[in-house]
């Protein structure tokens, strides 16, 4: 250990070595790594749930899990993946690590709050593990009433408390980012010079701050109703179950954008760097991010078209959903235009980034199909919906997460990862993902319902294909664990700026020193000043590189 540490330059990793220096750290970079450990754990817990679901669906007769157990399994998969992996994934790890570096700050505004956020996250994780240990929940991740309050025989209150507490972690992290981006930008770092990743994290933080409290209140009402036997959402006692759905989706639809907006930010960084071109329409990209964040609050009832809301409301929400597609499409077109006449290199992060654009496009376009009222009535609660949102959340967000992880890996660890292994994993992810989820579009359109533990034998072929894809995807997601772990010890040393990227985070050493920058940087240039002609670039501190 000391031998390894001896030849490393002093950095945030080698500053102190005690366990307490990690567990009580106020350094945003170390807290990012703590979060990374936590969400990786939950990613594989949720992944086990996914594998069991796909194993079960190999056979139409439900041979592996009993119906009740199957319900608990997909509920666990949903709760873990949504709240314990996807929502914190990019913001709490890459965001935590990069936001101060990208804006030229020495830390986040409230370092203690940042550490607290990690502890609160783990506390909520303990509640969740307890809930799973004593038998789990069978309501689905949506906790729909009156099932969750009156009939469910799982541990709804435990799960609700876990998600409630988890929300505090989201809010603490989001608050820190908003305040930091407002107040701690380095001299010269104007709003229109912010990297798009920072814009994305800013937007996502605002969504977290305004949506999460509503979920907290909703789940508190559900838990109280179940605990005390009162009728907030119980129709027999005057309550309205539809009101629960409104409140739940008021959070949970914006939550989808909590998952995808940071991914969009990562994609912009990757594509500009590996195409060696400035992001096409930077200003439009920034406004599109904010536009998506705002409109995301006015589309929630498109989850309820078949739930009995009025036709007029359904039409309005359908229209609003089409509106949110406009800024999303602007982003896709601008990524594509950024590639045009670029000097493109297919390094692993770029493969993940391009995969993100393609999969997000498919997920987004099928989202428009679902926003169309008559189509939604046909495919509501089928595997078509499952495939659609997995294209966004897994194909989109997880691809971008892995892309970003590889891109900033040299900065975070000071080591290069093995490029060929990484390219293999990136390609395998793309192929495995499509094989898993494209058949589900077809299954859904043919009428296979979600959340059933068995299905008509006619659907078996597509299900076998999907399960085969899931096994490839599992390998693709497990691979980085090994070769990235290997690179920690034996990877080639990384220079400060191995990719020739323009962000401020590349102007400091890899890994950065504890205080990030020796002197507070002065920003003199817009981001993404890449020149595709000769590969040169101007980094944001104004230095021209050949």
């Amino acid at each position: 250990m000391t031998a390894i540490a001896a030849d490393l330059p002093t950095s945030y990793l080698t500053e102190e070595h005690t366990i307490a220096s990690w567990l009580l750290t106020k350094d945003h970079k170390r807290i990012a790594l703590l979060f990374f450990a936590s969400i990786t754990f939950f990613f594989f817990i949720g992944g086990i749930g996914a594998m069991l679901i796909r194993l079960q669906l190999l056979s139409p007769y439900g041979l592996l899990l009993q119906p009740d157990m199957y319900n608990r399994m997909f509920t666990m998969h949903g709760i873990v993946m949504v709240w314990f992996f996807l929502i914190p994934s990019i913001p709490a790890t890459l965001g935590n690590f990069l936001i101060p570096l990208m804006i030229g700050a020495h830390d986040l505004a409230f370092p203690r709050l940042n550490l607290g956020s990690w502890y609160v996250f783990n506390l909520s994780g303990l509640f969740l593990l307890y809930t799973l240990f004593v038998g789990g929940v069978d309501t689905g991740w949506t906790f729909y009433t009156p099932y969750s309050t009156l009939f469910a025989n799982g541990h709804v209150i435990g799960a609700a408390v876990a998600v409630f507490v988890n929300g505090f972690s989201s809010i603490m992290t989001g608050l820190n980012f908003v305040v930091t981006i407002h107040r701690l930008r380095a001299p010269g770092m104007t709003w229109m010079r912010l990297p798009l990743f920072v814009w994305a994290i800013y937007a996502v933080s605002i969504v977290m701050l305004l949506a999460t409290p509503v979920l907290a209140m909703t789940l508190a009402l559900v838990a109280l109703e179940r605990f005390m036997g009162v009728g907030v959402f119980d129709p027999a006692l005057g309550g309205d179950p539809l009101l629960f759905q409104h409140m739940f989706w008021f959070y949970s639809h914006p939550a989808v954008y909590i998952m995808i907006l940071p991914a969009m930010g990562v994609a912009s960084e990757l594509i500009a760097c590996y195409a060696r071109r400035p992001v096409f329409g930077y200003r439009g990209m920034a406004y599109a991010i904010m536009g998506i964040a705002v409109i995301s609050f006015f589309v929630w009832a498109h989850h309820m078209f078949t739930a009995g809301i009025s036709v007029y409301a359904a039409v309005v929400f359908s229209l609003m959903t089409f509106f949110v597609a406009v800024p999303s499409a602007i982003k896709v077109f601008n990524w594509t235009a950024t590639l045009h006449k670029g000097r493109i290199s297919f390094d692993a992060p770029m493969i993940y980034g391009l995969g993100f654009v393609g999969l997000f496009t498919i997920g987004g376009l099928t989202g428009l199909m679902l926003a169309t009222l008559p189509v939604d009535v046909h495919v509501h609660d089928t595997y078509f919906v499952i495939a659609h949102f997995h294209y966004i959340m897994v194909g989109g967000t997880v691809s971008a997460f892995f892309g970003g992880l590889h891109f900033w890996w040299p900065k975070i660890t000071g080591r290069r990862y093995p490029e060929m292994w990484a390219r293999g994993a990136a390609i395998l992810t793309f192929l495995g993902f499509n094989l898993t989820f494209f058949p589900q579009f077809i299954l859904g359109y043919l009428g296979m319902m979600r959340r059933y533990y068995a299905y008509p034998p006619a659907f078996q072929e597509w299900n076998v294909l999907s399960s085969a894809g899931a096994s490839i995807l599992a390998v693709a997601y497990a691979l980085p664990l090994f070769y990235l772990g290997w690179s920690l010890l034996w990877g080639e040393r990384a220079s400060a700026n191995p990719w020739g990227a323009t962000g401020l985070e590349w102007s400091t050493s890899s890994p950065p020193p504890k205080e990030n920058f020796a002197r507070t940087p002065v920003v003199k240039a817009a981001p993404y000043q890449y020149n595709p002609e000769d590969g040169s670039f101007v980094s944001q501190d104004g230095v021209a590189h050949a």
Partner: protein
Amino acid sequence: MASPMRSLAPEPQFATLEQQTETAQLGMWVFIATEVMFFGALIFTYYIYRLIYWEQFRLAAADTKILLGAINVAILLTSSLTMVLAVNAAKEGRQRALLVLLLVTAALGFCFLGVKGYEYVQDYNSSTVPSVNFLFKSGYHSPAELFWIFYFIATGFHAVHVTIGIGAILVMSWHARRGRFSPNYYSPLEVLGLYWSFVDTVWVFLFAAIYPLGRAIT
């Protein structure tokens, strides 16, 4: 007297003390925005049911103890005044006035909780606690109980916030006693003042939403 110099250097992530102060205030405003959404969701839900079950809610709300609720409005608004005066005292370096005003604010907070507790006892005695001893009087249907559910959830969540506020005020009083604040450094007090005023404002909204309903002239 502890030296106030320790607090005069900004934390490492800030360039100046002024930047640190502004940042702390912005942090509290953002936090208040989340709290608005938290209580907003509850009050919104309450109003939905109030619109649907107007008659039942009106009947049920007639059993609320409006006098106690009104006294609590007066108590909390007064405590907001003493809080602001405390911040002012810190700004002007009047250490003793600062300590006294902070303690008065905390005492008013305790008064609020006392009155609230007494009100809960009265509510219990008039059999209006859902799932404990709720009594369906003549003319009552289940929405009347719904009203009381919201009454307890809303005032309960608010009382939690008051309790947290009192705790923070007591911590600040301890710091004030040790002479930590000066005309150059009192930003924690300003931030706490924002929170306390927000908690008071919530009570004004809850009072208006809950108590006068039963006395409406129809």
